[in-house]
């Protein structure tokens, strides 16, 4: 229900207020986004944007979790099946 895409914060204005705004870059296009809900997000951070609002920051340390899990599953199965 929620088309939200990741973008990188380029600029921030209106610090400390509910109208904190930023220019966010999505793969080469930019849009003004309301950053009030992610007060900790700063220039260079990636945020998830839905209808003009950043709802969450992308935790870059978790970005590989999807690939890690797959690797773990492979290892798990190799163990079960008694090695390669």
């Amino acid at each position, binding site marked *: *229900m*929620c*088309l939200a*895409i990741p973008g990188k914060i380029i600029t921030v204005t209106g610090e400390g207020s509910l109208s904190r705004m930023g*220019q966010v870059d*999505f*793969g*080469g*296009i*930019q*849009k003004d986004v309301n950053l009030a809900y992610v007060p900790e997000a700063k220039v260079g951070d990636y945020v998830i944007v*839905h*209808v003009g609002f950043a709802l969450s920051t992308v935790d870059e340390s978790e970005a590989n979790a999807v690939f890690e899990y797959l690797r773990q599953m492979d290892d798990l199965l190799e163990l079960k099946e008694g090695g390669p």
Partner: protein
Amino acid sequence: MKPGTEFAPACPIPIRQYPRVLLAHGGGGTLMHELLEKMFFSAFGEAPAEGRHDAAVLPFPAGRLAFTTDSYVVRPLFFPGGDIGAMAVHGTVNDLAMSGARPLWLSAAFILEEGLPMETLWRVVNSMREAAERSGVRIVTGDTKVVDAGKGDGLFINTAGIGVIEHALVIAPGSVRTGDAVLLSGDLGRHGMAIMSVREGLEFQGRIESDSAPVSDLVRQLLAAGVEIHCLRDLTRGGLASALHEIAEAARRRIIIDEKAVPVREDVHAACELLGLDPLQVACEGRFVAFVPAKEADMALRVLRQHEGGAGAGRIGAVEDGHPPLVVLKNAIGASRILDMPSGEQLPRIC
């Protein structure tokens, strides 16, 4: 401003006197005469051969005649990379090229809204002059009507075009054969997303410009190289999906497309993701698909890639037997889905 147009002549209609189009400018009297003389004729040149009459009388070369028409209602009138005038010329030139014709002459009919700034009209007319020069065609006849304010949304243009077919090929869906290669002349979605970028309520910033351009020269190169072209179709409203769907239906065959082979620029891809649109359904204005025998695909691509407008050309799929006619997309995951005909205007979504 596009490169090469740093110096544009000033509007020839005295702006201080007539800053906006009036009903009288369409009325057939002196004001209309002045509009025609100073603006249209000075931009498009005198009608050839026999001066100005109700019809342009033209010397017709030997061969088959191709004839097409289209109307242009785009909003806004000016957008990154183009405007309604350039579109109106390129679009009709391209329709002629798609039947393998060499475009020769265009007509241009304008419906103007009372109150349209004269400067706007001049910019559009100038743009058409440039586009005509670029496309190697002349605008030889036309018409102007002015409607009451509130009834016209600014400006509409209709162009009709005449071209000559100087070869023996029948370039049409009926000539498509099983096993044909499907070629695409370049990346998708620039025009549609350029329009979106300036559309009220959806605007975004970036470098996406319309790909509005004539493709007639690319077709001429293919013909000159002796490529046995079976079918051509330019991608306009409805994008690649629409064009392929129409051809599959008309040729009564299946078209299988490899999604990985379809080029989309990163920023166009991002804009589509932002608005929830499918790049395969987004309008282009300077792109076409070509159906050629598989063994000629490589040669055709070499020819296209040598030319400015075809640098991004590639092979995207093939024609197969099958009923009912379908367009099937094979994606990176290895799954197949039907590429359906877009229904109505694509609407950006939230969910």
